Each structure stands twice: as C-alpha cells, then as structure tokens.
C-alpha cells in the first residue's frame, strides 16, 4: 500500500481514525486536563473551519459563539439550577441564535469585510455580557459552574476527582459532533461550501443563493463552537469574560491554520500542537505570546497549508 492509498483509507474512515486516536490520547498527553482542552479547542477550531477552511470565509467573531455557549450553559446551571445536560443544549442553541443574528448582518458584506464586521459584532457581544451584572458575573466572569458527579445509570463518574472520567465524558459529546460534522462536509451542502470557496460568482450563476448558504453555514458553525464553549464551562467550572474577547476568536483561527484549514484533521492537530507547545513554553518563559505570534507568522508566510495540509500536499506530489 503506497502513501496516497493510505491517506485515502484514512480519509474514508476519518471519524473512526479520530475516535481511535482520541480514545488513547489522554495517555499520550502530559496530563488529562490538557487532553480535555485539546478536545474542546479542537472542536472549537473544527466549527470555525466549516466557514474558514471549507467555505473560504474568514470570521474573527467565533469567540461570540464559544463564549455564549459557555455562558448559556453556565448561567442555566448556576442561576436557574438546570440539569447539566439540558444546560449544554441551552448553550448550543443560544450560540446558534447568536450566530444567526451576527451572520444575518455580516453576510451583507463581502470578502475581507466579513472578518472586520464579525470581529466588531463579537466584541459587541462581549460588552453585552460584560454589562449583565450578576447574571454573567461581569468582569470577574461566571463562577460556580459545578458538575461533580455524572450518573450514567450503570456507573457514576466522579469527574472532579477523576480527570480521566471528565475527559471521556467530554469525548462523548465531541465524538457525536465530529460525526455530524463529517456528514455535513461530505454532504451535497458540503460541496456547495467548497463551490463558494472556489468561485463565489460561478456558484451564484449555477443557482446557489450564496448569501443564504453563507448564513446557514455560519449558523451551523456557531452551533459547533457553542458546544465547545458549553463543554469548556463544565471543564473549567468557570467562564472567564476573556472567552468572548476577539483574542479568543484569534485562537480558533490560529489553530485551524496551524493544523491545516479546510482539512478534516487539521483543527484537532492544530489545537494539539498549539496547546502542547503552550504547555511546554510557558514552563520556561512567561512570554509565550511572543513565540505564538512568531510561529503563526512563519506558518502564514511559509506553511499556509498548515501541518496536516502540508503533509497531504507532500504525499500527493510524490
């Protein structure tokens, strides 16, 4: 079996490949909490990748969906005492709603404006949540999102004491999301996204309503990022206000690009590389951001395909 056959097989069974890898990942990662972070941020970058990588539209506003997902879930649990499972869905739905509203405004603009407008709109969400007072915790963020034990019927997970249990709990949600995501990008709708990325005018002339498609994709993307946010609220048991800041949007963009935008594995590989590198560098210096910025610039300049994208490209050229 040669290399391109191998990548072909991997692509065909991509959901299984990811699942198998993520099952053993906590034993490869330095510690479980980091592995859980990789799951959450991988999902977050995956959600962004639907519009950024597959549709070719750069959004700098996805922090809004991550943040609203986190706050929605957290507020439902902390202030309204909702069970954690429906709380997660509340978070997802609120993130989706935010994406629908933001998207409806942002699709009125084209190309590069999209990045600016989504950034500004997301920052608007930041200020709204900031001013919600006790409900959101304002500047201090939302605290006390506690989920101690999870009753699965046959067994009870003590996720505070057992970080590995928490990892697998989060993995359950992430795997369902990955499966759905894989179906979407492999569906006819997925090819419309590629068509828009390749040639917006031609897609329009073929009979696709490009604006409507963009809006739908943007909203779906918001749902995935909302789930990532919701899981992060449960993982961290707090929601910092920074999770709505545009730097948070930048994280998803950077992870997607580092891993390989428009590729299925890219976002997870990007999140993994990013978080593990951060973990190593921050033990040595407090100036991680310097390295991050420099590494990112090097990728933009010399490896725009990202890690996985470059590997695929290298294999296909052999």
């Amino acid at each position, binding site marked *: 079996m040669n290399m391109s056959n191998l990548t072909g097989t991997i692509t065909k069974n991509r959901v299984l490949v990811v699942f198998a890898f993520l099952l053993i990942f906590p034993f490869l990662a330095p510690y479980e909490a980091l592995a859980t972070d990789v799951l959450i941020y991988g999902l977050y970058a995956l959600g962004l990748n639907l519009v950024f990588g597959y549709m070719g539209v750069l959004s700098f506003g996805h922090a809004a969906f991550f943040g609203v997902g986190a706050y929605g879930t957290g507020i439902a649990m902390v202030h309204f005492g909702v069970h954690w499972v429906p709380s997660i869905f509340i978070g997802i739905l609120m993130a989706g709603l935010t994406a629908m509203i933001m998207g409806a405004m942002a699709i009125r603009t084209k190309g590069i404006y999209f990045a600016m407008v989504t950034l500004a709109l997301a920052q608007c969400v930041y200020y709204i949540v900031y001013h919600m007072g006790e409900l959101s915790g304002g500047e201090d963020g939302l605290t006390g999102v506690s989920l101690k034990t999870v009753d699965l019927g046959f067994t009870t997970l003590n996720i505070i004491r057992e970080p590995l249990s928490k990892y697998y709990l989060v993995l359950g949600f992430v795997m369902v999301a990955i499966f759905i995501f894989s*179906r*979407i990008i*492999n*569906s*006819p*709708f*997925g*090819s*419309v996204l*590629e*068509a828009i990325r*390749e*040639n917006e*005018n*031609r*897609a*329009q*002339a*073929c*009979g*696709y*309503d*490009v604006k409507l*498609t963009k809006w*739908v994709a943007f909203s779906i993307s918001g749902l995935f990022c909302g789930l990532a946010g919701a899981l992060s609220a449960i993982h961290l048991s707090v929601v910092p206000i920074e999770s709505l800041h545009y730097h948070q949007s930048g994280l998803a963009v950077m992870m997607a690009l580092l891993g390989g935008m428009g590729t299925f594995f890219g976002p997870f590989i990007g999140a993994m590389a990013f978080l593990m590198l951060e973990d190593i560098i921050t033990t040595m210096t407090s100036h991680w951001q310097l390295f991050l910025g420099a590494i990112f610039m090097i990728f933009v300049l010399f490896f725009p395909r990202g890690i996985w994208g470059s590997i695929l490209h290298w294999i296909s050229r052999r």
Partner: protein
Amino acid sequence: MNDDIIRTENVTMRFGGFTALNDVTASFPNGQLTAIIGPNGAGKSTYFNVLSGAFPPSEGRLIFEGKDITGTPQHKFARLGIAKSFQITNVFPELSALENVRIAIQALEKRFDFWTPRGQLTDMEHRAADFLDLVGLHTHKLKQASNLAHGEQRALEIALALACQPRLLLLDEPTAGMSPEETMTMVDLICELASDRTVILVEHKMKLVMGISQHLIVLHHGEVLAEGKPDDIRNNDEVRRVYLGQGKH
C-alpha cells in the same frame, strides 16, 4: 407561446454618470441562435450581463417567456432556465471536472441536503459525465479543472451552464483567447447546442458570427443600431460604416 424567448424593453443601464446602455429594446427569437455584435465599447458585455441577470437594469424591463423577471436575483436565473458562460473562464479551479458539473446539477435539486454522503450521488455523477461527453471532455473527468487547457476550461464552463437544463443559453465571447483549432471545435459545439435550445452569443468576431447565427443584434454606443438576419445586417449601410470606420475585427 411567444415567438421570442426573451426581450428587453427600454433597458437603460447607468454606472455613476456613464450610460452604458440607452433605451435598448430588442427581442430574441425562440429556438434560434442570436448573436449580439458591435465594436469595442458598444455595450455588448453590459447587455449580456443584463440578459443573464448579473446587472439589474437601471430602467426598463426584462421579459422571459412572457414573464417580467426584472430585478430577479442572479441565483434564480439558473432555476428559471437561463444559464450563462462567462467571458473570463469561470469554473471551480481546485475541483475535478466531474465535481464541477455535478455541483452545477446539484444546484437544481439538493441545495440544502446536509446528510446524504456524496458517494451516493451516483445518478448525478452519471448525468454530469454525460454533459462532459457532450462538450468533449470525456477523457478528462477526474482532472482538476485548473489543470485543463484553456479551450477545455471553456468547454467545461459550457458544461456547467448546460447542467441546469437551460432553455436559454447565454455565451459571452466563448472563443476568446482560443487557438484556431480550439475555436473550430467550439464553433461546432455551439452549433450542436443551438440545434435544440435557444442560444444568445456575444461575439466580436464578425466572420464567425455571420456563419453560424440566424439572427443578429448590432449595438453601437449603447444603442441598437440594427437587428435582423445575417444577410440584412451584412448589407446594412450603417453597420458597414460603423465596422469599416473601426477597422477590421
């Protein structure tokens, strides 16, 4: 049924202070190959863009099969039965030729299907392959569009246009930048396509147009200078004056 498939009534198109089309009223006979000709800057491309829905006219009406479709959004034109090929090659460069056409076919059927795996769309793929056969690209189905030769990319574009089963096919200078052999292949293809659907062609190669079209509309300075059968146009003094005055094309 009208005997014209599409017509424009008093269409005026302005860009800022510049009037590109002035009060253009013309009709295109059903089932025929009509060519829009005129010297450079006559407003041919603008007129093409009005007919194909890219520019809603500043004034006037666009009537397709007796229905007023003025101001209909671009993406609905394909669904109405009007398809176009662009002047500049306009395909999905990183996708295979087959996937290009399949996406065009899909536009009429599955715009918002989020779940069916692409592998199950075999029927659509067969139909896409048929369109590629028709335009002479049967050997290049799996080739990436950007790797096709210029003439082949133009042919692919026509396959994209055909994929939405248009009753009216609009072609904007389909032979632009082609070698003589490529041009001949393309002319044959256009004639074949015109045998079972209405075709409107924008072209500035006078000789090519005279040979294949059944009806002609001559634009000059954004207005209709003449309209009629090739022979009438050939003998029209005004047309001769405009073309001879411009040098040969």
